[in-house]
């Protein structure tokens, strides 16, 4: 085997870097190649949108970057430190300290209020913001003591975002955060992500099917068949509030 670390592995300027990343799922008798050699880097304060059809490998990449899944081969470095091959405990610690997740389905704990859902994360973080502060960032200062069942879909997603960023993560990974929302509510959610990105300077990766949303990114990665087929840098970023679909 060749030396796994490329020359630029120690490049700590990149928050996340991947090299020859592949992922094969063995489902029954067929092998599904979800990733076929992905080389990428994500930089501090960068907002990257990942576009592509279903099954193109976006979510798989995001899960591996976030330490939810492991690659079949290839390498991932977080700030120059190799994530590949780490065990479950180490990956849990990595998620706990550095990663914030937002999913299409909000996955709030129904038995906890908005503030408590956020506190769930702040209680186990080293330098968190106050739950109320995180909720204020996403414009929910008036819904702090509401239970999920008392919140609209957009509000629930914003609580999920507040929960993801309250620990001041280094990376924010959003998988179709607006997928279940209407346009107007979706814009509110994107605004929240934008605000956080601006205020905290978090490296943010956002998966979407919606081409319009790509306009808010610094950089857009087009996925197809497990590979990055096109990279585009937006000359001019559009503000979320100016989007509509």
């Amino acid at each position: 085997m060749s030396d796994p670390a490329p020359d630029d592995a120690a490049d700590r300027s990149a928050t996340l870097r991947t090299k020859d990343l592949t992922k094969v799922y063995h489902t029954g008798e067929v092998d599904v190649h979800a990733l076929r050699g992905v080389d990428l880097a994500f930089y501090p304060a960068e907002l990257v949108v990942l576009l592509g059809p279903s099954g193109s490998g976006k979510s798989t990449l995001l899960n591996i970057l976030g330490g939810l899944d492991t690659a079949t081969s290839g390498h991932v470095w977080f700030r120059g430190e190799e994530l590949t091959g780490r065990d479950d405990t180490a990956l849990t610690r990595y998620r706990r300290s550095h990663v914030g997740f937002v999913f299409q389905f909000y996955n709030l704990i129904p038995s906890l209020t908005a503030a408590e859902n956020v506190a769930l994360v702040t209680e186990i973080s080293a330098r968190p913001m106050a739950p109320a502060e995180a909720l204020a960032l996403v414009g929910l200062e008036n819904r702090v003591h509401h239970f999920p069942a008392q919140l609209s879909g957009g509000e629930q997603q914003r609580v999920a975002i507040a929960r993801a960023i309250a620990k001041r993560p280094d990376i924010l990974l959003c998988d179709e955060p607006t997928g279940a929302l209407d346009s107007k509510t979706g814009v509110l959610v994107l605004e929240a992500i934008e605000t956080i990105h601006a205020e905290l300077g978090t490296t943010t990766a956002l998966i979407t099917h919606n081409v319009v949303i790509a306009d808010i990114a610094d950089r857009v990665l087009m996925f197809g068949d497990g590979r990055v087929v096109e990279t585009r840098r937006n000359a001019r970023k559009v503000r979320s509030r100016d989007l509509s679909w």
Partner: protein
Amino acid sequence: MHPLNRKLARDLVHLKGQVLAIALVMASGVAVLVMALTSVEALTETGIAYYERYRFAHVFAQVKRAPLHLEQRIKRISGVQTVEMRIVKPAILDIAGFDEPVVGQLVSIPEHREANLNRLAMRSGRRPSPAEPDEAVVSGPFAEAHGLDIGDSLRAVINGHWRELEIVGTALSPEYVYALGPGALMPDDKRFGIVWLGRDALAAAFDLDGAFNDVSLSVLRGTDTERVIDRLDALLDRYGGIGAYDRADQLSNWFLQNEIAQLRTMATILPTIFLAVAAFLTNMVLARLIAVERAEIGLLKAFGYSDVDVGWHYVKLALGIGVLGVVLGWFVGFWLGRFNTQQYAALFQFPFLLFEPSPKPFLMAGFVSLAAALAGTLSAVRRAMRLPPAESMRPPAPPLFSRTALARLRAAEFLDQPTRIVLRQIGRWPLRSFLTSAGIGMSVAVLVTALHWLDAIDHMVDVYFKQAQRLDVSVGLAETRSSVVLREFEQLPGVMSSEPMRVVAVRLRSRLREHRGSLQGVPAHQRLHLVYDAHGQQLDLPPEGLVLSTMLADVLGVGRGDEVEVAVLEGRRPVFSVAVADTFETYIGTPAYIDIRALNRLMRERPAASTVHLRVDASQQNALFRALKEIPQVASVSVKQAAIDTFYDTMAETLLIFISFFAAFACVLAFGVTYNSARISLSERGRELATLRVLGFTRTEISYILLGEIALLTVVALPLGCAIGFGLATLVTEQFTTELYRVPLVIKPSTFGWAVVVGLIASAASAILVRRRLDRLDLIAVLKTRE
């Protein structure tokens, strides 16, 4: 196969852990029910067949001495079918190699014909031949206990004379199914044996030519035995009759029927608990399955399946679980029933055992259990049937939680979020949480109830044998003797002190009720055989008046100060009226005490005793036994330590085995409840737990949330179970109360402790199984799908 049925089969396989856990709980209930009912059936059928085949009598009576020609007058009593007149006498037996004097019951059998009633079931050998007065048949278990064989000899004191008897056969008798020696609490085949001798031989020995001292009758079907008893008593009165009694009051039969009654009690209480818990578990699993399959239900309805089709589909699932439980329970129950009946066969002496269970117990257990399973499905199935198709295809609204009173407490502010999740989950479904706790509690309760028997028996033995009896040996005399006899006994080797007791057969009458029993005359201040209240206090007898056990006072409906008429059934047969001076609590029997001097006075006799209690130097016990065997007037000898040992041995053979069964069943119960609760929690909250893992919670931290809930419910369950166990033990001891026994309600702290430990272990075992599933939680799959 219809696709829905295929789905059903796959659901059952998919839910196998939970299905099995419920089926096991149900099987426990079915097994106990089948065991109890088949044993009841086997004992009843065996008893009936035995009694019929060997012509067990319907009415029994003892007299001092009555002429044989009375037979014709007895036969003329309306309803009487057959009469058998016998000689029945006690004797001391001497077995080579066995130090203690053995108590024998000599019973006459006709020499030239088969007995009309209470026939012998010969086990080996033959009956005594008319020409050989020393030929004897002995009871089978007694011969076995001493390794006696045909051709062996046996020494017996018969009417004060040593006789060498030759064993020519062994037999069983319907009269001695439960062979209790005089004053014994448990059958002891080593220390009590029945010896059948030819009638002429016994008549000659006891000077009863042309006379009898025991009569048994059979009556025609439909005859009122009470009337026969009254007529018989009237006939026998002048011959020293001590009162005839019905088969129901015959000692051996009473114990047999009592055991059957207790088995019936067991068949109601325990299965009810198990089946109720199984119903609850079925409901829980089904409700969850229906919640998960909401969309499928909507789809089925959209395709045109009716509400009834959908409901029936889930009912079939419950029936599937039920059938599995019932079949499992049948097998275990059959095996337990046979085992149990065999245990009884060792305790109750039957010449044959009919364990041929009819379908009835099985059908009944199956019906009751399936009914319980169905009852458990009702609310869940109704919910499935009522789901409108359009609504059911949308995901359910998230459950609404609210801030409870708890949340407003100051202390609640310090709770971390995982703990809040646990508490809110319990608060959101209080009934389900309570029932889960109650289910786990039930397992603790079953254990407390089962283990309580050990405490009760220890306590009974302690009070009855150790605290109340300071004596070592009791000697029964063949005839009442002057108290001077005490001095003779005090001269015997090893005797440290002695105390007389005068026992007379009496009929006690209050205004309305009557009780046949005995009156025991003991010294006002007893030293060896104490009049002892179960609460731990010795009673000194007043110079006049009766001291009754509370049970007897209840039977007679009298209290302190009330007059009781005492009709003595021996000697000059005086009748007198005495006031009740006091009552006291006892666990065994229904004794009535009076100062021995008062009794002697009322009997118009010199100071006399019929039993002598002795305190003995243990090192000289065998010398004492040898001496006692040589004293002609000794009719029985009972050794306290031997009685205690027999008591424990019998209990170990019967009760301990049951307790271990119930411990196993209790574990199944605790396991079934916790496993199902944890699995359902996992299914309901897999998403939550996966989310927490994504947020960076470790496996241990999310286990805290899932298992913390179970742990908290278990913690609530333990004291709850102890309380329910106390209640159940109370109920059971009340159910088991008879005139002969009162089981004391004594539960040692260690019993609660053990029950709690076993409950904890069973819960922990199921928690560990579920914890392993947490490790396999698929984080991505859970989060990518809408619930």
